[in-house]
């Protein structure tokens, strides 16, 4: 599935400055692997050592948080819009 992925400012160093990139994958997990192939290091910024989404990273498929769907197993459809959005948090 070909999808559009919105990249937040802090990760654009990895995407040659691009705010939106194209990716493919059957699921979010596949998509992250595809993106990591194109933009090495991006997956590590989004997932921890065991492959789980980091606490302060939100990924949305068409504005729906994947935590409320099937996480990295969330199935993608052609034309889906994926947004990687850092949490807004602090102390």
């Amino acid at each position, binding site marked *: 599935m070909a999808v559009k992925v919105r990249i937040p400012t802090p990760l654009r160093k990895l995407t040659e400055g691009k705010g939106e990139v194209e990716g493919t994958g059957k699921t979010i997990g596949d998509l992250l692997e595809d993106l990591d192939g194109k933009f090495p290091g991006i997956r590590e910024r989004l997932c921890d050592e065991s492959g789980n989404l980091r606490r302060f990273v939100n990924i949305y498929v068409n*504005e729906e948080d994947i935590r409320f769907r099937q996480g990295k197993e969330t199935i993608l459809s052609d034309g889906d819009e994926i947004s990687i959005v850092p*949490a807004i948090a602090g*102390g």
Partner: protein
Amino acid sequence: MLKIPSDIVDEMIAHARVDFPRECCGILAGKDDGISHIYQMTNTDRSRVSYLMDPKEQIKVFKEIRTLGLELKAIYHSHPNHPAYPSTTDVELAYYPEAVYLIISINNSRETKIRGFRILDEEITEAELSFPPHHG
């Protein structure tokens, strides 16, 4: 210089007072150096020492900001009984270099002080703020 109209400043302070002694948080949006919109957000941490904006609200607000042709200008949160200066956690979790981080210090007497900072690569720089009177 970030210009925050006085009515929006009043709303931020009111938010900090209502949520005291817990931290409040929110987003300011606008164009160029002016602010036109304030979004009070839910602090899902419900804590006196931390905040985490509700991700569901966050994406909704981001979408509205884009639809209105605005930009995310500032992120505010309160420091109940702590100075208006970024904490270590604030610096670690500063993922929005394009925004000014506004911190509202509020004490037991509900006195407040607001300061703004840019946080880039763990470096804190004070941002100049002005509070023009609200017209209309």
